[in-house]
């Protein structure tokens, strides 16, 4: 009786076996196309519009925008406010991260949520809270401000405070999870070898979270440079004096200085794109540091 075994390569699943869920079907092929279309319409088209409109009347016109004293004043104010707010938030972020990740206490989850609060409060409400404290006419501290002659609302301190309040969680949020993951054996070892608190922080803790800290710094800076809502409430939006670059964009657009608005917007968009590229680079460095064998997404 002839009983032949078919050669191996001829064994295929019978017709009635369905292919696996993401097999060669129509839907799995459609998903990336739909995803790209949606992101294209919602995000890519507006992003490209900024670039195209900034150069719509030529490169020379784009450069001429930067001769405007109002734009330069706005750029300067934005840089000054960020230069004060970002280091303050960096110090707080690192202090909070070491304090929270290295302590166990009841209400830890609550404290983490409280630190996240500025993410869920509307920027406008943040601005309002500062107005209610420091307004010379309505504020809680109006008497104190009057007697000392300090000006907070409609001037630099208010803009800095608004920027700080909106951006302070970024650093702590990036560093805390990493610090908790790392454990504290290395720090204990450093202490048994006689290192002081300060030495442990600089030589052990900070190097171990350097990429997360850098990432937090990038996010803080990008958000600080671009903050609009909170700053618009407290700054008074006086052209050339208390107008930051994002406020300048809106003001120029309202005044029909469209090229100027898009020129300034391109500067801010450039910052956003640089921060995204840095973020990708830092993420790769973080993955490489964690474990060489671990798969990268």
């Amino acid at each position, binding site marked *: 009786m002839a009983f032949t075994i078919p050669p191996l390569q001829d064994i295929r699943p019978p017709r009635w076996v*369905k292919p*696996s*869920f993401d097999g060669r079907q129509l839907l799995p092929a459609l998903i*990336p196309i*739909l*995803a790209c279309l*949606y*992101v294209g319409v919602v*995000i890519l*088209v*507006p*992003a490209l*519009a*900024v670039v195209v409109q900034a150069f719509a009347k030529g490169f020379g016109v784009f450069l001429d925008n930067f001769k405007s004293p109002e734009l330069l004043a706005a750029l300067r104010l934005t840089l000054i406010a960020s230069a004060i707010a970002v280091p303050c938030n960096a110090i*707080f972020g690192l*202090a*909070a991260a070491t*304090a*929270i990740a*290295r*302590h166990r*206490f009841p209400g830890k*989850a609550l404290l983490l*949520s*409280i*630190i996240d*609060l500025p993410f*869920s*409060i*509307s920027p*406008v*409400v943040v601005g*309002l*809270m500062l*107005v*209610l*404290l420091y*307004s010379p006419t*309505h*504020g809680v501290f109006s008497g104190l401000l009057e007697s000392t002659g300090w000006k907070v609302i409609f001037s630099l301190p208010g803009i800095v405070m608004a920027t700080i*309040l909106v951006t*302070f969680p970024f650093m702590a949020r990036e560093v*805390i*999870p990493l610090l*908790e993951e790392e454990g504290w054996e290395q720090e204990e070892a450093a202490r048994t070898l006689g290192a002081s*608190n300060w030495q442990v922080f600089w030589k052990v803790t900070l190097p171990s979270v350097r990429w997360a800290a850098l990432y937090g710094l990038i996010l803080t800076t990008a958000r600080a440079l671009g903050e*609009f*809502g909170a700053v618009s*409430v407290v700054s008074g939006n006086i052209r050339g004096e208390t107008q930051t670059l*994002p406020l300048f*964009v*809106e003001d120029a657009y309202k005044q029909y200085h469209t090229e100027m608005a*898009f020129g300034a*917007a391109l500067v801010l*968009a450039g910052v*956003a*794109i640089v*921060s*995204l590229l840095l973020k*990708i680079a830092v993420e790769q460095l973080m993955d490489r540091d964690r474990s060489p064998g671990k798969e990268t997404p």
Partner: protein
Amino acid sequence: MTVAAPRRGLVLPRWFRPNVSWSITWAYLALVLFLPLAGMLLKAAGVGPAAFWETATSPLALSTYRMSFGIAAAASLINGVFGLLIAWALIRSRFPGQRLLDALIDLPFALPTAVAGLALSFVYGPEGWLGGPIQRLTGLQVSFTPLGVAVAMVFISLPFVVRTVEPVLRSLEREQEEASWCLGASSAQTFVRVVLPQLMPAILAGIAQGFSRAVGEYGSVVMISSNVPFKDLITPTLIVQMIEEYDIDAATVIGSVMLIFSLVSLIVINALQVWGQRYQGGDASR
């Protein structure tokens, strides 16, 4: 303050007690966050309950709540569907331009809202790249209408669902799906009965985050909307208009309503993340 003993029964070292970083944290939080919150509560309490209720439920305020919360809900639900789709495309398939798609998702986080507002109001304006064709084809005007507000809210709440679903989808075991179709389930059944229940907490957390962000959004909406009361005025813009008119009490009342909403949404999002931890190996602290 009490501190639980560290692992392995070590004796609590001296440096472990409240120290410099602990003091900096609380001092900074007190100055930057608690003081403004307390000031707001103080001012809101000073308004008086009757006046508070009257302002908080005035017809204009109610119309802005409807606009803000209604459109934000629609926008975040749309992004719930498409966010899942995008996360699926990023994790479960390979196609050219995937890295670019991944990077673009974060753009609404990174792009200043004023820039987003400028770009959207141009693109969807009557002369814009998309606004023009849409108006010619359907007769609908996008900018300066509630539709424009919706476009801005969709833009800024897009990343949330993608970023919450991605890690859960990546950690799902393919074997479950294979087991499901081995047992005779169709693709659709497998998706609805096996995959979707595991992704649901992440999807809902993403929708809630997107909703919360969209409700509070000001910069991009103020540029694409006409800010006309009862037409497309949103609550944050109403607060700004009240401050500009020096009607600080009314602004405080509406601001307090927004603040209470933020606190509630923070609790809901945290609860959803705790629920979602069941499906994800720990780490919901991020």
